[in-house]
């Protein structure tokens, strides 16, 4: 028994680079790679789940999606929602991080408060936001009216639904960006700051010419991390508006879900999901290029 054990142990030691990752790679192969392959296969078929078998139609689904107006709408909503929310989160995250980048009593408390929106269950807080954003009796409109501002229809109007959803997303994710950028700021070298100060640079100049270039790689990394989830935002939009009113907040991702699980069109839904994946991939490839360039400077 002891011999067998030491033989196994020796085998593991000799083949460490192979044995250690093998179980995880096999698991990922089964839970990730095979479903993706199946999904890719389905993109070339026409099939309503529960009715008959998938029928091969080649590129038919991709031809269909080009002329599908809900696809165009989905891309527009996705660009509007993600473009606005990602840029706001990045800019606000940076500014708040710069604000808190100093020694002060209570920094621990701020950190604890800022971790909360990140950890909070998206569906649960989205429901609370839905209550707060109610146009008639919601607390947000009440607070606005009590300082003399007009209320808004928020998610009940096609005109304001995206900005309102962006507000919820910004609420949930800006604190996380802040904490990441803050950690980045704390690890910056001191020398460039001293040099700038000796040269007589003012606070704004130091921020613009020293901090910003140095922190850029961290910012892009945070953006990439955030974009992975933001471009595939589901829980919050589904909980608050389900894509409505009408289809005014239906992102391409939400539409692909509806096609797959409300209309049960597996083939067409899969084709849409592939398009979403390609968008996420393209965004991240471009961002990674920018990050590597920013690191070189």
């Amino acid at each position, binding site marked *: 028994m002891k011999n067998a054990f030491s033989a196994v142990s020796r085998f593991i030691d000799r083949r460490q680079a192979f044995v250690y990752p093998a179980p995880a790679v096999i698991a990922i192969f089964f839970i990730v790679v095979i479903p993706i392959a199946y*999904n890719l296969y389905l993109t070339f078929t026409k099939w309503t789940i529960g009715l008959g078998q998938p029928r091969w139609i080649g590129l038919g689904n991709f031809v269909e999606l080009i002329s599908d107006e809900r696809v165009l709408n989905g891309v527009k909503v996705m660009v509007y929602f993600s473009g606005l929310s990602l840029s706001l989160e990045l800019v606000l995250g940076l500014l708040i991080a710069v604000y808190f980048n100093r020694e002060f009593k209570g920094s621990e408390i701020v950190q604890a408060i800022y*971790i909360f929106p990140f950890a909070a269950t998206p569906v649960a807080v989205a429901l609370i936001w839905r209550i707060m954003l109610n146009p008639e009796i919601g607390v947000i409109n009440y607070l606005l009216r009590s300082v003399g501002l007009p209320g808004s229809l928020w998610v009940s109007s096609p005109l304001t639904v995206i900005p309102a959803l962006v507000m919820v997303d910004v609420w949930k994710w800006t604190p996380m960006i802040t904490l990441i950028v803050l950690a980045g700021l704390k690890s910056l070298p001191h020398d460039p700051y001293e040099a700038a100060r000796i040269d007589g640079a003012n606070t704004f100049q130091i921020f613009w010419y020293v901090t910003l270039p140095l922190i850029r790689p961290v910012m892009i990394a945070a953006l990439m991390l955030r974009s992975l989830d933001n471009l595939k935002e589901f829980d919050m939009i589904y909980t608050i508006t389900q894509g409505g009113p009408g289809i005014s907040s239906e992102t391409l*991702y939400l539409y692909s879900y509806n096609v797959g699980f409300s209309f049960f069109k597996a083939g067409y839904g899969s084709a849409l999901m592939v398009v979403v994946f390609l968008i996420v991939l393209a965004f991240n490839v471009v961002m990674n290029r920018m990050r590597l360039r920013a690191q070189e400077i």
Partner: protein
Amino acid sequence: MTKTFRSILFYAGAVALSLPPVFVFVWMILTGLKTGVQNISYPPEFIFMPTLENFRAVFQQHNFFRYLMNSLIVAGLATGISLVLGLPAAYSIAKYRQGKIGILILVARMTPFVSYLLPWYIIFRHLKLIDTYTALTITHLIITLPMVIWVMVSFFEGMPEELEDAAMIDGCSRLQSFLMIVLPLVRNGIATSAILSFIFSWNQFLFSLILSGPKTKTVPVAVYNFISYGKIDWAGIGAAATLIVLPVSVFAFFVRRTIVQGLTMGALKD
């Protein structure tokens, strides 16, 4: 004098910047402590006689204890399996620079969850595994396993190699040194990745929405169902949301320092 003034100004700003997260948290709890009538009164009531009636109803009429247990079981299983599979893999990726596995992890993270959900739904329907812990745990692993590996690679890379070498000179096998020297050294990382994995599994909505059922319904789906019966039970939502959010917030609080490190380091290095 100016120094005190500037300090007061700074703290005023700090309070203002902390208000949004605090306000939503407080409003969630207040909603849970109000009666149904108080919740739809205008202007909204800030001061009122709190009631625990909603929490009682959530447990007694909606069987919430069952859902909490379901979530606990699925998140616990997903996290445990992810650690067992992910720790050695992350160690190996960090030590032997196995970039190709890293790319596999990245692709897993980039792929829209719906792309996994459709095939898995078809497979589980076929195998009659809808509404089982097996189906939920497998799909949650799609999220938690890459996350544990992603986070742990950065912790293993940040570990000094000398200690491991010293252990090997003292006659430890590599396996022994991994289990008894390396893992204890990265215990902060293990705690962080375990809690992150738990949080993301606990919060996961999409997979559970389609693959769970009356027997295995998890808490995000349970709270969502408060709105799908025609009328919205706001007081119930407040109480249920509080019960769901509280545990993960407490967990995140304990690892708040290392969460940021774990989430970014992987993205910052190549």
